[in-house]
């Protein structure tokens, strides 16, 4: 059944009739990125005001593929289990050439993880869950719908925002302004920041259809099916995904010169869908036609204005790197901004948000540009290499690996960057946590639940952890006067090794690894992760 949109209520803001208090953080945009950031900050006790020009969740499913790492972050933010329950879990991708399957992949072949490789869940559900989660923090999150930011000015140590409401204009000041206002970011436009990059000529039609029977045929499986040159859409490519509520996502490549308005019209779309699903009845739920772009800002942090999500970077969608990349921005920014606001770190720490996430988004852009180039050969010679790769892929394993219908989002590694203390380890400093199941006398848990949120020192096997204020301690396969767990199925020990202590940052990335975690060594590593060794340029 199609989603029922319920508008959020607009409440005339205080600023219309009296002076606004000084806000710590103003978040522009109540999409998944802005809302997730507000929740992350609230969980750290930081207040924010969230300003959105609209009053409904995302129209159309838009971002649907949420990766394992994103789900782990959403778990920390309190909506992971709800997303998992509602979403369609999948891990198998199949590539077809014509009507023949040429290659399939299993994205999570191993056991012992709380979350699967991917779920499909419409963006409107994610936004709804985030709004409901945000409403659990009435004292910390001030959600203001139909509050459109129409101007802003960086005052050096604060930002002044001009906000239009149905009842008129008002102003507020905030220590920090976070622009989560999407690919067309008005904040970015107002600042005149260059946002140019690679735009692909080809256009894609995206359609959500609602149908009782499965377009996956008799298999009726939650998988990702991709076609090079499908029998129903000759010479182009196509992608099929299953979503909750009997909604299916179909992506079809169009001609470069296609008229996007005409292509989005029902009389044009319906025959294309019928070519795929045959005579099975279906209903069109949402249609969009767009061009791929791969662009990022040169700098994500502009003094007191910080960009996160699509306002900072856009990628073509094959690879599920847009929404997932944005959530990783939030995960990276939330604890740093909170630390700066609490006086635990210098403002220079925020420059590492740029360093780490600009790197992550460049990686996403590289991967999605490669996939898009493979999918849309531009010259006869590119066409020739593509078709011979497909031919060899019938039986040559190396050629199957060359087929690129999107390399799906993996957690970004921050190895070698400023905040990490280098060490040789199975999970090197910079990498995101690898989840593992844990058992204790009081109940079962997952490593991600014990580690994320605060600086946490985890001892695996025979290693003694020092007692330090501000650092949580967890033991695995050891006995000590701090919480201890047994590695279920030995997964945790296999993944991290034994006789090692790992220091995790609040976003669950490893920042140091020790054989002998002395007080001094751990404190130094923690200070480094909080930016102690950075020049304070801000």
């Amino acid at each position, binding site marked *: 059944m199609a989603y029922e949109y319920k508008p959020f209520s607009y409440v005339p803001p205080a600023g219309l009739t009296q002076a606004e208090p000084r806000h710590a953080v103003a978040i522009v945009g109540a999409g998944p990125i802005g809302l997730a950031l507000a929740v992350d900050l609230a969980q750290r006790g930081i207040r924010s005001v969230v300003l959105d020009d609209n009053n409904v969740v995302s129209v159309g499913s838009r971002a649907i593929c949420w990766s394992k790492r994103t789900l782990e972050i959403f778990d920390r933010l309190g909506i992971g289990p709800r997303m998992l329950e509602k979403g369609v879990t999948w891990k198998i991708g199949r590539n077809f050439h014509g009507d023949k399957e040429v290659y399939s992949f299993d994205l999570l072949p191993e056991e012992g993880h709380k979350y699967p490789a991917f779920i499909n869940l419409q963006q409107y559900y994610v936004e709804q869950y985030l709004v409901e989660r945000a409403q659990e923090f009435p004292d910390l999150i001030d959600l203001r719908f139909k509050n459109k930011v129409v101007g802003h000015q960086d005052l050096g140590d604060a930002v002044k925002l001009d906000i239009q409401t149905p009842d008129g204009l008002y102003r507020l000041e905030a220590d920090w302004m976070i622009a989560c206002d999407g690919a067309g970011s008005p904040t970015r436009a107002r600042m005149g920041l260059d946002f140019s990059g690679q735009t692909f000529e080809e256009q894609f039609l995206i359609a959500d259809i609602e149908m009782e029977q499965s377009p996956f045929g008799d298999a009726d499986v939650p998988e990702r099916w991709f076609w090079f040159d499908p029998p129903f859409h000759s010479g182009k490519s196509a992608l099929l995904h299953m979503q909750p509520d009997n909604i299916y996502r179909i992506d079809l490549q169009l001609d470069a010169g296609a008229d996007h308005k005409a292509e989005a019209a029902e009389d044009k779309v319906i025959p294309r869908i019928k070519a795929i699903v045959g005579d099975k009845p279906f209903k069109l739920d949402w249609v969009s036609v767009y061009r791929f772009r791969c662009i990022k800002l040169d700098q994500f942090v502009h003094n007191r204005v910080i960009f996160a999500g699509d306002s900072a970077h856009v990628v073509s969608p094959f690879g599920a790197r847009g929404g997932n990349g944005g959530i990783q921005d939030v995960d990276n920014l939330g604890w740093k901004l909170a630390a700066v606001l609490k006086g635990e770190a210098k403002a220079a720490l925020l420059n590492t948000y740029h360093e780490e996430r600009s790197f992550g988004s460049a990686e996403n852009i590289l991967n999605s540009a490669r996939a898009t*180039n*493979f999918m849309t050969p531009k010259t006869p*010679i590119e066409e020739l290499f593509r078709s011979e790769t497909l*031919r060899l892929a019938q*039986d040559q*394993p*190396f050629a199957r*690996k060359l087929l*690129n219908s999107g390399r799906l989002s993996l957690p970004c590694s921050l190895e070698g960057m400023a905040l990490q203390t280098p060490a040789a380890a199975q999970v090197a400093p910079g990498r995101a946590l690898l989840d593992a199941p844990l058992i204790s006398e009081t109940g079962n848990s997952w490593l991600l639940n014990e580690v994320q949120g605060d600086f946490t020192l985890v001892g695996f096997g025979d290693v003694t952890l020092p007692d330090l204020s501000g650092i949580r301690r967890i033991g695995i396969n050891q006995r000590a006067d701090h919480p201890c767990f047994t590695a279920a199925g030995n997964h945790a020990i296999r993944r991290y090794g034994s006789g090692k202590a790992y220091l995790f940052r609040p976003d669950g990335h490893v920042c140091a690894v020790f054989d002998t975690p002395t007080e001094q060594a751990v404190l130094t590593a923690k200070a480094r992760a909080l930016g102690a060794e950075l020049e304070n340029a801000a």
Partner: protein
Amino acid sequence: MSIEPDRLSPVQDEFYQALMAAHAGLDETESHALNARLVLMLANRIGDVNVLTQLLQSARSYSND
């Protein structure tokens, strides 16, 4: 044909991108010439006539698909 073990991953995407970049801006004749040079250079790098003969036969065997 003979099945070759995959030796290209995990750098396959990087290679493919570089290959396409090498052809960028060339017309078809120039691209074919580049491919011919590349085959000859790869043959020299492999340097084993038995391996090369096997690869030639294998590549040829797909032609009549």
